């Protein structure tokens, strides 16, 4: 069974971004970049499927500028067998990413596609579902458990009220939630080995997809800042403030 896993290069999750003073975007110059945390979980899940003998090959895909090859190398160091970079310097909206991934899926014919549920930059939470619609595949989003057996995937999903389990015919798409697994760290020998693993580069034109815009970002502004309040000395004072000053209880 072949597993395709997507990895997005995003700002490191520990970094607090700032908005540029001209309100055109956030400032990403000199900011630490990393693999989207949900994609780390996706890679880990794919690699575990291989280690368990369920998957035979893990292919990592990333779309974007040249430097997302760094994250592909990380995926290779974590255990992916080979990588595909769809290179473009343009802003790739989720729908375009899904269209490009559909072409990759047509070429690669994976049985399972594991993606992050959400990229922590745009917080879109939509690319996996869009790819599922374009391919007509079933989807197990926000997965906290995945079992693959007999040509089917059973996915337990984190939903608002608790947990839901669905069964999907393969090929299918899974998007990862935080508790699916705990990703490993890449070891130094594996980082060295990853440098020799194959990494193919394609362009949207190679895949026959036109990069289009369906949205326009008019401005990016900082959120309303909260003022730090006061420290109270006791529970009694706290209760008094909540009753008589804030009037919320």
């Amino acid at each position, binding site marked *: 069974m072949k597993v395709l896993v997507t990895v997005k290069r995003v700002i490191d999750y520990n970094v607090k971004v700032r908005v540029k003073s001209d309100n055109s975007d956030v400032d990403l110059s000199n900011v630490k970049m990393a693999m989207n945390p949900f994609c780390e979980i996706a890679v880990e899940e794919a690699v575990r499927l291989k280690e368990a003998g369920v998957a035979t090959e893990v292919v990592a895909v990333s779309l974007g500028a040249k430097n997302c090859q760094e994250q592909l190398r990380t995926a290779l160091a974590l255990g992916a067998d080979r990588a595909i970079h769809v290179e473009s310097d343009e802003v790739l*909206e989720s729908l375009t990413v899904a269209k490009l991934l559909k072409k990759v899926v047509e070429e690669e014919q994976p049985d399972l596609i594991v993606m992050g549920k959400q990229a922590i930059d745009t917080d*879109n939470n939509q690319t996996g579902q869009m790819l599922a619609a374009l391919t007509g595949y079933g989807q197990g989003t926000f997965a906290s458990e995945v079992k693959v057996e007999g040509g089917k995937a059973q996915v337990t999903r984190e939903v608002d009220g608790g947990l*839901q389990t669905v069964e999907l015919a393969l090929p299918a798409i899974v998007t990862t939630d935080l508790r699916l697994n705990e990703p490993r760290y890449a070891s130094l020998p594996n980082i060295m080995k990853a440098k020799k693993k194959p990494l193919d580069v394609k362009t949207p034109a190679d895949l026959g997809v036109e990069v289009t815009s369906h949205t326009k970002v008019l401005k990016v502004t900082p959120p309303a800042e909260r003022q730090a309040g006061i420290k109270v000395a006791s529970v009694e004072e706290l209760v008094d403030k909540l009753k008589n000053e804030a009037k919320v209880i």
Partner: protein
Amino acid sequence: MAILVIAEHDNASLKGATLNTVTAATQMGGDIHVLVAGEGCQAAADQAAKVAGVDKVLVADSAAYAHQLAENVSLLVAELGKDYSHVVAPATTSGKNFMPRVAALLDVAQVSDITRVESADTFDRPIYAGNAIATVQSLDAIKVITVRTTGFDAAAAEGGSAAVEAVGSTHDAGVSSFVGEEMAVSDRPELTAAKVVVSGGRGMGSGENFALIDAVADKLGAAVGASRAAVDAGFVPNDMQVGQTGKIVAPELYVAVGISGAIQHLAGMKDSKIIVAINKDEEAPIFQVADYGLVADLFDVLPELEKQL
């Protein structure tokens, strides 16, 4: 053209998130039609017909829609959506699940998690865990939108008298099926709609210790939430997680107990009206957003607080 709002419901009743979504839709301008897709969902449809501002209710009643499977519901919504200017749903786990499929089927973008309607085609949405707000214009003929419910007041549940119409078409994509679910049962108010939320973090130390939080929540009629660390440690179930990747809450009063205040947690609660932080570390970042901070051991504070309320 009219706006299609996809109702959140459990067949028997309409969920509160639908009411906030109707308010957002009203601000986009146009007649409001509400789709209730489910199985045996007439009761939810009748409730939707009473919501103030709703002009028409469409009911799609079929076994294929029983568990809101995204593969099936999206086919229905995309079919109906062709005749609307906007297709709008709450950004709940259900809306997040099927709406991007609808967008892709219609070959349009989805604008996720909007917090403000600037005009019929322009919306605000938080990005980077709420550290920036993007004002986004949709260039598509049909706008597919999910709504962050805390950004909009609830429409009145009573006062409307919309016509209810049955939709005949049934779509079963045949690629997925429902196996089962484990839903949390609680007498407390729903986390995302509660006026008061008391949340515990890793500092709680164990699931048993959440009884201390429950006792305070009982006194306040509050919902109980948690940080990711508390959920990951197995203290409480996943549906209690507040944050960038959990639930977004904006109550009148949010009490964070033994929570450090990581940006991912703040993303889910910093729009609360009043924030109280109880933490023994006076350097904890949560104090930077708290209106009232109490530097103390939570195991002393919680029993005392319960007594004084």
